[in-house]
């Protein structure tokens, strides 16, 4: 239960506004800025309204942060970066081996997904992995690329990572 600070109405967990008096419940500050932003220019709006920019500049690098791992992984942009885990038995090798991050236990496939570069943006594509690739909570259909944005959450099986552009 979340008790409304204004009128003490009990709201269910996860509610963002009080059912009774309409006051914002989570973080007063966040809503104030949200209304303010409506006055700003439409161009400004775009970047903030979505999870982040999709534009990936010419000399940008990809930073991959794995949850519960303090050190970020820097990736040199290439036309295709295959994410997966190395395995003695298989001949295909991924470009980024996630074995050190518990990839096997977390259900990462040997050839799991790929980050592809096209013009000035990046796409994520699932390569038919067993446990699926999720982009911001949505499961990707294998072989169908999806646009990546700065700050996106990418989940390979149960391994949670975040992608940033620098």
């Amino acid at each position, binding site marked *: 239960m979340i008790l409304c600070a204004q009128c003490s109405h009990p709201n269910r967990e996860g*509610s*963002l506004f009080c059912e009774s008096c309409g006051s914002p419940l989570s973080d007063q500050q966040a809503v104030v800025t949200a209304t303010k932003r409506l006055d700003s220019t439409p161009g400004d709006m*775009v*970047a903030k*309204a979505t999870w982040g920019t999709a534009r990936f500049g010419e000399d940008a690098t990809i930073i991959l942060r794995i949850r519960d791992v303090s050190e970020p992984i820097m990736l040199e942009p290439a036309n295709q970066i295959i994410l997966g885990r190395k395995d003695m038995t298989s001949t295909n090798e991924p470009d980024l081996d996630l074995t050190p991050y518990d990839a096997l236990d977390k259900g990462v496939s040997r050839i799991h997904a790929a980050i592809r570069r096209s013009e000035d943006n990046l796409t994520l594509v699932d390569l038919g992995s067993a446990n*699926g690739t999720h982009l911001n*909570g949505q499961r990707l259909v*294998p072989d169908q690329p999806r646009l990546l944005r700065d700050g996106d959450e990418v989940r390979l099986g*149960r391994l949670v990572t975040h992608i940033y552009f620098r």
Partner: protein
Amino acid sequence: MSRVEIDPYSILGVSTHSSIEEVKAAYRRAARRLHPDVNSSPGAKLQFQDITAAHEILSDPTRRQSYDEQVVRRKAKQEGEYYFSLRVTPSKRTVARLQEPQVVYLLAEVLPDPRARKTGPKREARVNLTLVLDHSNSMNGTRLEKVKVAAHQIIDHLSDHDILSVIGFNDRAEVIIPATAVKDKAALKAKISMMVASGGTEIFQGLEAGVGQNRRFLAPKLVNHVILLTDGNTYGDDQACVELAHSASKVGIGISAMGLGQEWNDEFLDELASITGGTSSYIKSASEVVKFLNDHVRNLSDAFAERIQISIAPDPDVLLESAFKLMPQPQPLQTDQGTIPLGSLQANRTVSALFQIQLPADMQIGFRSLARLMVVGDILDNTVQQYQTLSDVSLEVMDNPPIEDPPISILDALGKLTLYRMQERAQAALSAGDVEEATRRLENLATRLLAMGESELATEAMSEAKRVAHTSAFSDSGRKTLKYQTRHLLAGPTFEDA
């Protein structure tokens, strides 16, 4: 709408080179969530039919091969065809495990093909438009004159690729212009000018004749749409109208309803529009008629895809509580049918809807799916019009989830939707006879409106609060203003895709 054009691979979420075992496993996984024995939601029933059909195709090597060949043949023909995509954003990606149920919001956005925006000289969709115009006695004078001006301008706007029919109705319906290509504009306008106001208002008569005219040219390549404009209440034929709207929706005709003045039944017109994916609007005075009608028709001819329908199948233990269309025109949605019509998708705007769902208490730690959303629609410029896309939404249940800010887009939409819900609750309280509660809710609404910088609307809410406190009733215009203006706040700025 027929649902035969499915892509079995994307429906089961398997790749085109997956083995039969993988197909079967994917089917079993999906069936555990969607089978009618475990999931009673109407959306799940529909989607279960789809996964079953997909499984039947892919698990039978002969059928699968013939499907693959068919796709290859069609691919060649469909090279470079348009698509639309679906993006679903949950209000949270991690939730705490709790002993009590909790709420999560899903923002579903249908995005048009970015190429459609770029295509050179502005393309216009062909419309099959029917105007159903009230010419009862109360329309006499300025109202009917303005409607005629609006109809004339619409005729000017349409071209000979478009189909137009016009019905006038009072106690009975009269076909003023039978469905025809818009060629001899002067003759069509002359017919409109002959309309005179008399008699009462019986909406069903007019609507039935209108849908009948529209059906004559009904085609998947067209935007098939009926606009109903009335200024009065209809008596006793509401139910017949609702049934008519359901059957119109099934064949792909959208109905938009416009109420002029104060005396019409807003709940009824809202329902008619929601059933078919159309919109309902409140036209306060006759002087606004021309603008409303023109804008509406212009939006129709901007359509990139038509008959967009979304279905949401929550997992068996997840409850879908409400759905609301945010853009382009805010509209409450009904969730009791399997599919929810969302109207048309324009080339330069997104169609978005907000879903409120409830998660059960005591969920298991780990990742879990919430719901499967699927969107179908007809892309007007494609050789094969019907297109579909789907999305499985999941989140992680943890003991101590990290603190995350809800996405601004959800926060912003929900903040405004809350205002709409507040006026709804004030009305509900008053209908239940609780004057005190209704007054309190209106005062709260005024406070929130003021906090959001909507001072004019806040004043309206405050004066209605006073009126309710003294007379135990809303004023007709105040009630409609609060309802349609708070709804209109949701339209807000357009969120363009970056």
